[in-house]
């Protein structure tokens, strides 16, 4: 990799200031994605700003939610009792990230902001849209791990973050700081569908900005399910996965005053991962769940609906079935029905 200068700021303010240089400065979280890209000359920053010194705590918010610092290690998220109690799908996703070594080292912000795993993007020889080129090599190339949704744009990557999917499903907001102060962005709007104008990035984060916190709202009366399908059982990104968060009509197992069952889904959020350039919210699946009893039959309907608008590429038609199964089993997990 190219030699770089190193800055180790103690505060957000110092970190933001350190990102502003003549040249390219990049923040370093766990570093496992960034250093690999630098070794392969996909990125060659002049300066690295270590942001592991930023907030690494999980704290309760006044409204009953949680605020997760960007520097929280993925292993600490996976083993956090507060997160497990309120947002079990986050814990499920965190526990499946990579390997023990990756979870020990990787940070929340690093997971969210990691770059695509597309093998054309990762290969120095392929100058694709994401590296300033004028084509996506996946279109006529090897695309078995590429997108089955959101394929109308120039790039056909799938977003690589596992944590982003439950964060979107729980309605998280991302706090971002930059030279002009701070702002909050809903997680669902943080990730951007590729256009010819924005294809170099996967999100709205500016070069001089930092993602500092994930703010999760109080979950309310919900049931949660998360299901990932992998080619290998470990050490790999999922082929497809899903988080479902189901807002229930009343407390589980009771009958409401008007005679409605507490097992009825009032509304749902269904978000799929590894299937589109962004965490992919499936409105058809959400509509299929709303107003239905929480059951295996409903889960199957949600799975069918989730892939009804899929547009797979030449080599990834098989992912449609996997995405369908992931949604179905995530709903089944929310219902407490045993899955494989």
């Amino acid at each position, binding site marked *: 990799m190219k030699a770089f200068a190193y800055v180790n700021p103690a505060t957000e303010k110092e970190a933001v200031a350190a990102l502003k240089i003549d040249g390219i400065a990049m923040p370093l979280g766990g570093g496992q994605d960034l250093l690999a890209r630098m070794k392969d000359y996909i990125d060659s920053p002049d300066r690295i700003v270590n942001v592991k010194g930023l907030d690494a705590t999980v704290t309760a918010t006044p409204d009953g939610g949680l605020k997760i610092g960007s520097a929280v290690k993925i292993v600490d998220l996976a083993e956090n009792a507060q997160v497990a109690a309120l947002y079990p799908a986050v814990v499920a996703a965190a526990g499946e990230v990579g390997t023990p070594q990756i979870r020990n080292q990787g940070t929340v912000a690093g997971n969210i902001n990691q770059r695509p795993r597309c093998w054309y993007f990762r290969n120095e020889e392929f100058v694709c849209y994401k590296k300033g080129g004028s084509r996506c090599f996946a279109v006529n190339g090897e695309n078995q791990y590429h997108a089955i949704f959101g394929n109308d744009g120039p790039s056909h990557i799938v977003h690589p973050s596992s944590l982003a999917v439950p964060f979107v499903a729980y309605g998280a907001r991302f706090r971002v700081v930059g030279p002009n102060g701070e702002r909050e962005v809903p997680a669902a709007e943080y990730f951007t569908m590729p256009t010819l104008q924005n294809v170099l990035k996967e999100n709205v984060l500016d070069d001089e900005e930092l993602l500092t916190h994930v703010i999760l709202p109080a979950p309310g009366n919900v049931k949660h399910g998360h299901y990932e399908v992998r080619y290998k059982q470990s*050490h790999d990104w999922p082929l497809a996965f899903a988080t479902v968060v189901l807002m229930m009509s009343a407390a589980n197992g009771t009958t409401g005053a008007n005679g409605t069952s507490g097992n009825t889904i009032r509304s749902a959020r269904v978000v799929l991962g590894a299937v589109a350039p962004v965490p992919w919210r499936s409105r058809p699946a959400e509509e299929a769940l709303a107003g239905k009893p929480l059951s295996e039959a409903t889960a199957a309907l949600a799975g069918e609906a989730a892939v009804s608008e899929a547009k797979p590429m030449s080599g990834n038609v098989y992912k449609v079935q996997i995405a369908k199964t992931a949604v179905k089993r995530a709903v089944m997990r929310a219902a407490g029905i045993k899955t494989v």
Partner: protein
Amino acid sequence: MSPKDGFGFSRRDFLKTAGAGSLATAVTAAGVAEAHAQAGVRALGPGDVPVTLTVNGRRIDLRIEPRVTLLDAIRNRADLTGNKRVCDRGACGACTMIVDGRTVYSCSTLAIEVQGKQIRTVDGLASANGTLHPVQQAFCDVDGLMCGFCTPGFVVSTIALLEKHPNPTPEQARKGLDGNICRCGTFVRVMEAAMAAATSSAGGVRRG
């Protein structure tokens, strides 16, 4: 930093002597890093900067560029060559070290980032008299290796596993070691070694 302990004169010793002690030379070199102040925070490098590591309980003072990984610093500068550089991308686990009690891929960690932390490598496991660590002994006893190149990483990961789960279930062992790959494919024996080490150390693994 004592490759001579019980091993006689090594290939590395020869290379180091031939190189006239690059370490000592570097410390007195005039090439001071172009550290400068910006917004109150110093930027270090891109040239050599002082980096102090605590490896297997010993302090090691180096002058290296910020881009040097923990693995390369320890192998090439500190002469502790037990952990191996294989994929150099955090995909194989042969470089696994324990930093403040947790395993990391040292190929994907900058040396400059882990100053002040307790770093443990496979080199620090055996006693000075050559007695192997119980986990190393278990790998020998059950023949838990073929070519052996991945073994240092597996040994370190096994130690971290047993510190977290002194009596692991097979599922915990698989999950705890799934960040390491053996390309010869002797995973069954590796699992046997991990379980045997748990038994032999009777629930208490000696700290490496």
